[in-house]
């Protein structure tokens, strides 16, 4: 006993990655290698930058989903929410542009963030105060957000005002020292998220609530507050993703963000976060999002599988990831 008690205090993991957590990164490396073998163009700096930039939206949203899922929840509404926030933001910018000019862009970003926080809070309170299963609650809001964007666009598209287009463009297409801005944004979000999840009291509580709600309750943790906050974090992440997304498409449509929830949940699960809660892996989630985009890119670059089957492949991946989680649990 004495020797154990005298052992120097060792920081537990957090940033460090154990063998069990290395899975998504090994998979990513294997995928890059396979991609190179299939088509050497795959490894061109241009293609890599493109793919990673495109994965940024899913990565940012999936980082938020990591909190929700680690705390034992699930948010199916993220895709519709992204579309809804995009719509609100564009409508606001277009309305404000004539009077304030390009200042409409930062104002619009603020509106997006507030809308995202509000949407997350709505999901969170329905789940916690309403005591409704997250699956059902967010299935409901998924329908609501989707209908609202369809209503706002009148079934068509709402394009961003021409006067704003040029000024807003760099948020997606710009770069700092050669690194595209969406990549920088998602890295920043991941850094903050990893700190919050691994190095703050909230992170501990979030994982504890997901691991065992009763233990958390008996330990004096407000389960409802922790869960709600996870949904709010999710809302903020969706808003940040939407802000980056607006210049890429330049418009909101009723089909914006369709099936994103599938990609998001897949990214989280292949990243090593436990779908039943109690374990969250922020960097794994980021790797998961990149993996998904790489696979889609490979399908385009190679001629093996039609790119129309991308969602099918993602569906297969999430099922395989779950099977691996189940087996490694044994």
């Amino acid at each position: 006993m004495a020797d154990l008690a005298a052992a120097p205090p060792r920081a537990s993991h957090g940033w460090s990655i154990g063998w069990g957590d290395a899975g998504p990164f090994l998979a990513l490396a294997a995928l890059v290698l396979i991609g190179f073998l299939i088509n050497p163009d795959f490894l061109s700096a241009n293609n890599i930058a493109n793919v990673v930039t495109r994965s940024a939206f899913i990565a940012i949203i999936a980082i938020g989903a990591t909190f929700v899922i680690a705390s034992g929840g699930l948010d199916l509404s993220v895709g519709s929410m992204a579309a809804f926030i995009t719509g609100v933001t564009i409508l606001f910018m277009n309305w404000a542009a004539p009077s304030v000019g390009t200042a409409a862009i930062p104002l619009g970003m603020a509106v997006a963030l507030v809308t995202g926080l509000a949407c997350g809070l709505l999901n969170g309170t329905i789940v916690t105060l309403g005591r409704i299963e997250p699956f059902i609650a967010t299935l409901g809001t998924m329908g609501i957000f989707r209908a609202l964007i369809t209503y706002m666009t009148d079934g068509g598209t709402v394009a961003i005002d021409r006067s704003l287009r040029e000024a807003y463009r760099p948020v997606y297409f710009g770069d700092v020292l050669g690194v595209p801005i969406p990549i920088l944004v998602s890295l920043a979000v991941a850094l903050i998220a990893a700190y919050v999840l691994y190095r703050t009291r909230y992170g501990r509580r979030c994982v504890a609530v997901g691991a065992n709600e009763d233990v958390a309750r008996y330990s004096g943790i407000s389960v409802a507050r922790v869960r709600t906050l996870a949904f709010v974090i999710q809302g903020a992440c969706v808003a940040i993703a939407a802000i980056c997304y607006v210049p890429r498409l330049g418009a909101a449509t009723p089909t914006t963000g369709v099936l994103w929830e599938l990609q998001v949940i897949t990214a989280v699960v292949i990243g090593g976060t436990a779908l039943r809660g109690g374990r969250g892996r922020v960097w794994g989630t980021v790797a998961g999002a990149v993996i998904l985009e790489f696979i889609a890119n490979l399908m385009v670059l190679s001629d093996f599988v039609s790119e129309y089957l991308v969602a099918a492949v993602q569906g297969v991946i999430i099922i395989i990831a779950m099977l691996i989680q189940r087996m490694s649990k044994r």
Partner: protein
Amino acid sequence: MTAAPLTRAPAETAAAPVLRAEHLAKEFSGVRVLSDVSLDLRAGEIHAVIGENGAGKSTLMRLLSGYLKPSEGTLFLDGAPVAFHAPKEAQAAGIALVHQEILLADALTVTENIFIGREIARFGRLDERAMRAAAAAQLAEIGCKVSPTALVRDISLANRQLVQIAKALLGTQRVVIFDEPTAVLTHDEVDPLLDIIAELRARGVAILYISHRLDEVERLADRVTVLRDGRMVGTYDAKGLTPQRMASLMVGREFASLYPARQDPARLAGADAAPALEIENAHVPGFVRDVSLSLREGEILGLAGMIGAGRTELFEGLLGLRPATFGAVRLHGEPVHFHSPAQAAARGVGYLTEDRKGKGLLLDEKLAPNLTLAALDRVHPAGGLDLAGEARLLDRAVAGYDIRLRSREAKAGQLSGGNQQKLLLAKVMLNEPTVLIIDEPTRGIDIANKSQIYAFIQSLVREGRSCIVISSEMQELIGLCDRILVMRAGRINGELAGAAMTESNVALCATSSAANEQSLGGP
């Protein structure tokens, strides 16, 4: 072996063994959990197997009932060697296992549970009537009065245990293995169950009885096999084997007393000591009716009663974990009202749940996060976590509470029950409570750890804290507490102190509506 020689059971007796095990051994991925165990089960005999947690009792039981295959050794059924590849084969041979946990489907009826997996069907259609009749007959045989059509969720815990036994006994049974059948039962639910087991013996069934409760073993067993660290200490004739003796054999050393020396009664100064916690007119809907109690400074107050008497619910209500109303609650004389365990902890009231696996610890989480979970604000006052400081706290807890672990990186679920309980105690103590409520402090843990936990409780009180101990083990309360309140059906039914703290008085108060403080109270 320091133990004095005991009467070895005679090698030959009248009854031939039904099931015999020779030199059984079991390894799990290279780790030997059981080696060289030989024993036999005879018709019309109760053979008890005792040992501390981890002694190999469950492994032995699983080997005998086909859940595990032995790495070495042979089983003989009626003298012929057999090997079971699945529990079904053992069942077919007439060997039934009654599990420790209640493994019944709540939403199904008693009959459906008894026949689950072996339903009677005619031409593919379920024969409900035949199953109901067979279930009723089986239940009647063991004296269980539950209706075969009742839903399991609607029947009491004791009756669920009986249904589980009826399920195991269905068909012709020659050997029945009971794995701690009384672990989930309270004192007066135990007696009828022991009678049923004795009745099975009278009918010529060979019974293997595994239990932590040595008094039951003394009362019931014909022979006793003691396991320690996966090895056999020996098989003994139960006659003249006292619980004390059994404990010594299990642990491998003599036991003077399980309980620490009692406090000086003068120090408590009887009713003069200031109250640490006063609860007046507590109501917890469905569980507690109009309960008032007072815990004195420096006192260990016991709360006895049956499961369902409302003891746990009273304190869950106090901490805001379930709806409750109070006439008044005073802590060290000041009125308080808690909405959550966090508020209670902030005021110095700590509660150790009875369900350490379900409500106490995160089993898949490492030790340090478990230790600090209830005291995050205290341990990490700044926004970020101080992991080095947390590691030092774990060191201190490991040393202070003698938590035995293989590795610092172990998960809480990998600790033994006793060490989990010590970790839970350390977790609650991080908030430095002045009033500590411990619900079932030693449930399911071995004797050595029990004795340590009692010593910890005693020393916490010596430091000036006050303690309420809720327990279903009467001996524990009598050995540890300065005073015992007995609850029955949501009310306090009696108060015992000094010489009046006897098992029979506690049992009387716990079951009889006539008991009251006047007739039993006072030393």
